[in-house]
């Protein structure tokens, strides 16, 4: 049986990779993937806790999170397509019309 701490460590590692990815990468697709990693880190946590607590709520939460993540990806990709059309770039440091 895999102990709970392994799952929690895995999810902490994934979450950290995600946060570092969001903060350091410049390509908007990679940033989105990093955000996805953060959400899935939380999902692993929820499922692992749900299993060890013998409580189903965590798994129900995960199903909702996956659904919302899909909706979020749809909105994000639509906005990225618009930007690529109007500006011809997917690098966030070139999104610089607004600043101050």
């Amino acid at each position: 049986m895999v102990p709970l701490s392994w799952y929690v460590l895995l999810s902490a590692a994934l979450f950290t990779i995600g946060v570092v990815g969001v903060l350091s990468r410049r390509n908007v697709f990679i940033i989105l993937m990093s955000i996805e990693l953060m959400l899935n880190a939380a999902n692993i946590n929820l499922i692992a806790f749900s299993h060890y607590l013998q409580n189903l709520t965590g798994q129900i939460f995960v199903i909702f999170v996956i659904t919302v993540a899909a909706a979020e990806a749809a909105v994000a990709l639509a906005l990225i397509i618009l930007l690529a059309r109007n500006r011809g770039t997917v690098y966030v440091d070139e999104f610089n019309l607004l600043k101050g």
Partner: protein
Amino acid sequence: MATSLQSFISQLLPLYPELVIITIALTILLLDFFVDRQHKAMLGWYSLIGIVIAASMTIKLAGLAGSFFGGTFLLDPFAAYFKLAFYTACGLGILISMKYLDIEDIHRGEYYALMLFATSGMMLMASAGDLITLYLGLELMALSIYILAGFMRSDSRSNEAGIKYLLLGAFSSGIMLYGMSLLYGISGTTNLNGILAFLRGADLANPVLFLAMVMLIVSFGFKVAAVPFHMWVPDVYEGAPTSVTAFMSAGPKVAGFAVLLRIFAHTLLPMQDHTAVILAGMAVLTMAVGNIMAIAQTNIKRMLAYSSIAHAGYALVGLAAGGRDGAASVMLYVLIYAVMNMGAFGVVIMLRKAGVRGEEITDFSGLGKTNKAAAFLMLIFMFSLTGIPPMAGFIGKFYIFKSAVQAGMVWLAVVGVLFSSISAYFYLRVIMVMYMYEPKEEFSLVQSPALALALAISVTAVIVIGVYPSGVLEFARASIIGIL
């Protein structure tokens, strides 16, 4: 069969206001096909009817307090108060949008549907009794507003605002979700009352619990635009269509404070010693950065963006003070802030014409000579935002700082008043530009009955609450009793 359907419908009773809003939004998506381009404003009036129906239902349901659907949905005066604030923000937002959308040539039915979806998300947030409902409501609101911020499809600035908002919003939701998963792991439940019951008997020195609490503060700090999580605010406010900026500065911010109050003044109450210190620190930073950065702005939307950061700081002072008085003062403040900010944006929208963006502060030059009524309205909203009596903004700040003093945080109240006096500089500068500068060129303002109605409502509210605050204050005080 018929009886089971009937019992199902009667079980949905607590959700009626949300259902009305969502039904109206969905029918707008359908009706949009049958309404031609010149008459899209009809959809706006149609959604306003929906909002009025939902508001009357919320008032009727106010007596029916309790928790429903296995504790995931709460009906209490607290939720009702915030729902009425959301109706106000959404209604004013729709009223100031109609003409503006025509000018920007983005008058499409989805706009109103998305406003209503965002409102229903906020209503779920205010009523959430469970972390899952809270998360879903928040995402429903946020996703709708990401789209609204990027609503001008062919305008690069609007696209940029949308994607910046989305990336930072999704990032903060990721942090919030991780904090929620830790909270679930520690307490074994996602129910807010369950978590409160667990914390009452728990070891609060647990570092994981502390981490979860910090993650929740960080993510809601993003949502209400508190420093140091405010970087997105000026860019998004400037790039988004002005009507969306107005709605965004009122609705989601009020919803964010509804959740902050529910979580930090209710669920995490046993950890108040820790949370109060962090919230007080954030309040000072937020007031400092918001007020000081606003001085240097030349674009009115950016200036109002920094001002909205500063106002989040004042509300955080009340949250840090805690207790019934602190919570009631926050509730009063966010309502007043929403109304006066919508009013200020309503005047900014009047300056928008085809070919002229009308977003620079210098565009207000000589407005006091060319259009006395508009200039006078802007004067009232700017006085109210500064906090000059007898406007409502003064009452809001007064009760916030009073609650801080009563909670023994005199230093925090003093800091708040000092920063508030800095804010007079950039608010009064707008008035000076309007009345002391010569008009640059002949220009006529955008006028429409809907916009005039919105401005009349907000200016009446600002003055009535300012002169006679006890009605709203008692309402806020009575609403807080259920959760504290």
